[in-house]
């Protein structure tokens, strides 16, 4: 399970960046690690370059609890495998 977790990251998706930034600030205040990242296309069929919050598997339960307790707005939380590969050399 731990080995599999190494390659999984959770992406929290939003309707707009205002919503995303609100949750980002909330998580920061609670000391929950998160990073702003472009939403991978695997999670979304629409033609928009939207932001997502990237969460490590170790932190996802605490993040879900925080969202629930604060009634924070978001669209979906999606686990994706092998999204991040530092030597893939696929640039744009």
């Amino acid at each position, binding site marked *: 399970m731990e080995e599999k977790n190494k390659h999984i990251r959770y992406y929290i998706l939003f309707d707009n960046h205002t919503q995303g930034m609100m949750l980002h600030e909330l998580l920061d205040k609670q000391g929950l690690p998160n990073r702003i990242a472009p939403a991978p296309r695997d999670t979304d069929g629409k033609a928009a370059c939207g932001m997502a919050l990237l969460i490590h598997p170790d932190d996802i339960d605490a993040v879900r609890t925080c969202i629930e307790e604060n009634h924070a707005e978001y669209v979906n939380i999606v686990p994706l495998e092998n999204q991040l*590969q530092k030597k893939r050399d696929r640039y744009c």
Partner: protein
Amino acid sequence: MADYVKMWENLGMDVKNHDNLCQVLPTAVGDVFMTQENRPKAMDFWDMVIAEVHGIRPAELIEEQKKGRKVFGTFCVYVPDEVIIAANGIVTGLCGGSQFWVPDGEKVLPKNVCPLVKASVGARLGRTCPFFRIADMYVGETTCDGKKKAYEILGKDVPMHIMDVPQMKREKDIIKWKEEITDFAKIVEEFTGNEITPEKLAEAIRICNEKRKALQRVYDCRKSKCLPISGRDALLMTQISFFDDPVRCAQMCNRLADELEQRIKDGVSVVPEGTKRILITGTPLAVPNWKLHNIIETSGAAVVCEEMCTGTRYFENLVDESGETLDEQFMNLSKRYMKTNCACFTPNTGRIDDILRMVDEYQVDGVIDCSLMFCCLYDTEKLAVSEALKAKNIPVLSLETDYTDKDAEQLRTRIGAFVEMLNQ
């Protein structure tokens, strides 16, 4: 998801083709930036900007246009932003840094033109970049032959003004550049309908100087042996600074510098002690060109400085703020901009002096001199750069690349060997 499709359609963009770019951006950003450990918290701002790179800032620019402000698109650090800002105009960088735009550029340009020029033309004619659609006027300059001819093509599609950059640095050339700035100010006044007064220009000079100081503060932190930020993150900051509002840019860079200075005090480094420090010099790395930095920093070294237009050439040297008349201010602008050491000048020994100084200041172990394919000017200067560095026993690796991924493995081999040699 934030939905900017309507805005892109209103800009006349090819939304369907643009979607192909939107699809690859998250992968590149994820691989280059999100794989890093222990990034500065203040990078959140740039993470957000790049996540919505064709959304938030274009929407801001359109709102300002509705208020009557004009947007000027520029391609070179020689174009004085101060003049545009003094007329209540907005500056946005336009250099294309993606292979995605190259094929559309090649429809009208020869293949053996540098990828930056082809991508810039392709982004406009292919209608796949909002910044190229939004800009009311393009401001070109004569810093390379490829651009000069490209501007003739772009000028058929969008209002264009070309500034004639001198090719030498004699006293009469500084006066000539001052005259060129004076003429540009008249063009900007006519286009915006706003008069440029000494007071407005003084304020614009102050704004741009504050931005330069803030960028320099971040770079100063990179001089520390305890390296508080990766080269990739610093490059992203610099790339975005060409597009952002200058006041906000200075605020965000200062916020980042605050954190980096604290990291240095606390001994927080993004790389293990002893990691070899690389200075990159050469042609600009326009957003989203991150290939070279990513390969270097995933090959066991760290990039600590960029002696390039998307680096120190953008912010080193301040404009003298003591000018009281427009004539004095235009001269002060000319003097500052003419200190920028571009390979279009002959001779260009100032660039060699800069590289040697920065090797010392940034405690550099090795230099990578990289030019974009078909950039005759920077390619030719490699000999002088290499000779000067070798004379000082500073290891140097000369490279040439383009925007494709095809040479990534080859670059990994060469850069890996260079880093290994530095480690011996």
